[in-house]
């Protein structure tokens, strides 16, 4: 029998329900794995064994008392940008290196209520700005499949933790691909739900109109369980959609026969990586064998996606990150001459260069005289992209495309070339721009043995359809069951 830490949440939940194991046993198993692997992977900013075990004991008491929910006792890692009351939450930034939130994010409250032990906070690109988890002030996370490679970002810690069995499931956040890209690069499954589905309350904002929390796990089945837990209306958030959500596990065994997948020519036309092309072709074959139909379609404004994203996201970020000024919490420069100097030095010392770059971009784009040409134009492009998708979904049930244009790249390879780094998100960004749900699942491996993922995109609030398609694929393939040779 493999270690408990290597099992899926679904398996563990069954073992727990049958009282064949305890949450403490599982949590210890994961903590042992963290002890063994963390030094190489560096998935976490902070591991909290005491807290995790205490929560595991609570979970076991709940099993004794019969007060059990589907994921009670299953340990989870939380990305370091979600507030955990009384526990340091740093966003991978020096400026919040000592910040201890006085409140729980809504998702963290939900996790507590469910009784899932929180293992610690997972590493990330600073303020979720990056595609490689290299911009964290705590240093890069490494890809468990090849420690020389980046894990993808910005939720690289969450994905690497799940891939290396340093967590059973994890929460990530996705602004332009930050769940899907690392899930893809680490060979695990991740979903960014529809904007407004999972509460952002307590998620440290990067770009408010794009940020969305979602789960990362080994299987689509686990993702469905996690969606059941975290989707829901939150009165603390104005952009949270007040509606009821289905039981996502009910989509797991639904046949996909007769469903139509759209293949946007703008996505496939850009492919120039043989591994990605092969994986896409293989995936199509599997779906075809399941009775899925395909239709070629066009999303004409997709080419402007990245350009528009890099106006909107930095604009919002420049305002969202203004609060880190050294006045109330977080880092404050030691020596300064007056208030303005305190602001300048605090922020110069506290932020890394990618964050500074985006703050400057956004400040510029919102400046009087430039607003119309940049922000307003980008907002219009966003509407066009959203309309493109709406039109596309008239002829298909979901869209199939790659998650990333290539397999994982080397640490340091693109960190000094922002444009190349930004292009990593070419397939994921449009999904955030349109607020759609997108799922990344393993599709195969490159010739050099690195994971290659595929992406499924559905209309708003059709996460269930993604679960249906994803689980159908995972029943026919076993890429998601492969573990990195750590």
């Amino acid at each position: 029998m493999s270690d408990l830490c290597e099992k899926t949440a679904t398996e563990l939940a069954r073992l727990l329900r049958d009282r064949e194991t305890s949450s403490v046993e599982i949590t210890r198993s994961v903590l042992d794995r963290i002890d063994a692997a963390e030094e190489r992977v560096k998935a976490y900013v902070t591991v909290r064994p005491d807290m995790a075990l205490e929560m595991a004991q609570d979970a076991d008491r709940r099993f004794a008392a019969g007060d059990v929910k589907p994921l009670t006792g299953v340990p989870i890692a939380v990305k370091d940008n979600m507030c955990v009351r009384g526990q340091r939450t740093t966003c991978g930034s020096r400026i919040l290196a000592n910040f201890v939130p006085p409140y729980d994010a809504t998702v963290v409250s939900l996790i507590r209520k469910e009784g899932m032990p929180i293992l610690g906070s997972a590493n990330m690109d600073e303020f979720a700005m990056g595609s490689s988890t290299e911009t964290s002030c705590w240093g890069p996370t490494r890809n468990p499949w090849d420690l020389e490679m980046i894990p993808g970002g910005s939720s690289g810690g969450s994905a690497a933790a799940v891939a290396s069995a340093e967590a059973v499931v994890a929460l990530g956040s996705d602004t332009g691909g930050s769940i899907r890209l690392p899930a893809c690069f680490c060979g695990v499954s991740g979903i960014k739900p529809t904007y407004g589905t999972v509460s952002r309350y307590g998620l440290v904002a990067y770009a408010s109109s794009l940020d969305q929390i979602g789960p990362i796990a080994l299987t689509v089945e686990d993702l469905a369980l996690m969606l059941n837990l975290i989707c829901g209306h939150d009165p603390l958030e104005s952009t949270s959609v007040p509606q009821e959500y289905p039981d996502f596990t009910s989509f797991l065994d639904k046949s996909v026969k007769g469903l139509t997948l759209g293949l946007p020519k703008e996505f496939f036309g850009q492919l120039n990586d043989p591994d990605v092309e092969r994986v896409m072709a293989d995936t199509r074959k599997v779906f075809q064998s399941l009775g899925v139909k395909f239709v070629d379609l066009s999303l004409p404004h997709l080419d402007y996606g990245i350009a528009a994203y890099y106006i909107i996201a930095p604009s919002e970020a420049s305002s969202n990150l203004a609060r880190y000024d050294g006045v109330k919490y977080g880092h404050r420069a030691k020596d300064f001459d007056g208030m303005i100097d305190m602001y300048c030095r605090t922020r110069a010392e506290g932020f890394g260069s990618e964050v500074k770059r985006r703050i400057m971009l956004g400040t510029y784009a919102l400046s009087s005289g430039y607003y119309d040409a940049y922000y307003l134009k980008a907002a219009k492009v966003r509407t066009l992209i959203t309309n493109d998708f709406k039109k596309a979904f008239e002829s298909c049930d979901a869209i199939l495309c790659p998650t990333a244009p290539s397999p994982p790249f080397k640490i340091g390879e693109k960190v000094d070339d922002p444009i190349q780094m930004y292009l990593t998100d070419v397939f994921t960004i449009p999904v955030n721009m349109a607020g759609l749900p997108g799922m990344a699942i393993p599709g195969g491996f490159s010739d050099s043995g690195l994971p290659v993922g595929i992406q499924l995109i559905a209309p708003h609030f059709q996460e269930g359809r993604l679960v249906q398609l994803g689980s159908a694929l995972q029943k026919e393939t076993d890429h998601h069951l492969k573990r990195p040779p750590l």
Partner: protein
Amino acid sequence: MEYEAVIGLEVHAHLLTESKAFCSCANKFGAEPNSNTCPICLGMPGVLPVLNRKALEFTVRMGLACNCTISGVSRFARKNYYYPDLPKNYQISQYELPISLNGWIDVETPGGKRRIGITRVHLEEDAGKLIHDETKPVSYVDLNRTGVPLIEIVSEPDIRTPEEASEYLRTLRSILVYLDICDGNMEEGSFRCDANVSVRPKGETTLGVKTELKNMNSFRNIQRGLRYEIDRQIDALTEGERIVQETRLFDPVTGSTASMRSKEQAHDYRYFPDPDLLPLRVDADMVERIRCELPELPTAKKERFVEQFGIPPYDAGVLTASRDLADYFERTVELFPNPKTVSNWIMTELMRELKGDELGITSCPITPTHLAELLRLIEDNTISGKIAKTVFEEMYASGAAPADIIKKKGLVQISDAGQLTELIGMVLDENPGEVEKFRRGKTAVMGFFVGQVMKASKGKANPGLVNQLLAEELKRRCAVED
């Protein structure tokens, strides 16, 4: 050359909601510093705003009272600037799509009624407060006020004189107080005003270069600040200088204004729609409901008082300065249907006791019932007008009913002819010399006799009856002696 001033005013009014604009903290003045705060108004990482519905309703109420169009869809925008009293370093405000637009209010000015255009009424959040330590270079931040809902009421540049500005503000304030959405307290900063001022040669239609005036925190200082600034601008132009577009600060000690920052130093606020707050759809049914619930506003009430009660416009103006005072008047008139008498008593005796503060009426110890009772006691000659004033003071001090005070202090008017004739006889007997003067035709001594009778009755004698009986008695005595 003759110049005229062009003035536009920006008023900020604190809304009287229970909680803050975007979180559930109490909206209260004067609490322990930083006690009315939570992660949301402290701008902690990860928090999000949720609009206070009441604050929206109050804004709509003011918009409707100012004859504005209520926008079907409006938006909150972020106004970005760095200051330690602003925890997020942006203020949630409104920019392109305010809740209400394009209205007007009528203002009574010395030169007649003026219609002042209202550009917009929008909702925003207030900042906190800095407290500077005077003994060391340290400042403290109190964030109790952070996130308190404010409405900004922007006027068109329709105002021409400091006096008009002051009247406009008084009218605006009384509307806010009538609507029960702001306490109108200028000292505590719940009603604040900035002004945009320019001057131009009379008859010119294009606008001159304007300055923005800040820190005028009373009606008097608003007039002083505007007067100074208008004169300064006219003097400068007369000297051939140019007006510089800038923000100027009024100094209440010297009564002058001084440059605070120039146009070049002006902030670029980088307004953009707040992505944390969706476009606000103001439901037409809600607007209609609020419209139906609007109280009668000061101007309408004043006009009605003149018409319905036949009191002079001046009286009506004083009585409608606050809704509670007007209600007080109306309730009293219901019980004692002589409006002018009621108005006189409220405007003189009552306002004296309230020290001119019409808002104090809510805690007035004299109820309309008691005041009406008092007036009835004067009318039916139970007490004299003079005694009534003493009784009134006692009523204000004790809150007791006038009849009880009169009974307790034995102040009932003597209207018994026999009793009065006896008193008159006594006075006449004691003053034979004065009677003699009267007999010789010096009728002015009548006043002396009345005074003596009143004195002898300790002020309780019915003065009308005394006059009548005295005349009869003197006539009788003189006739007898002749």
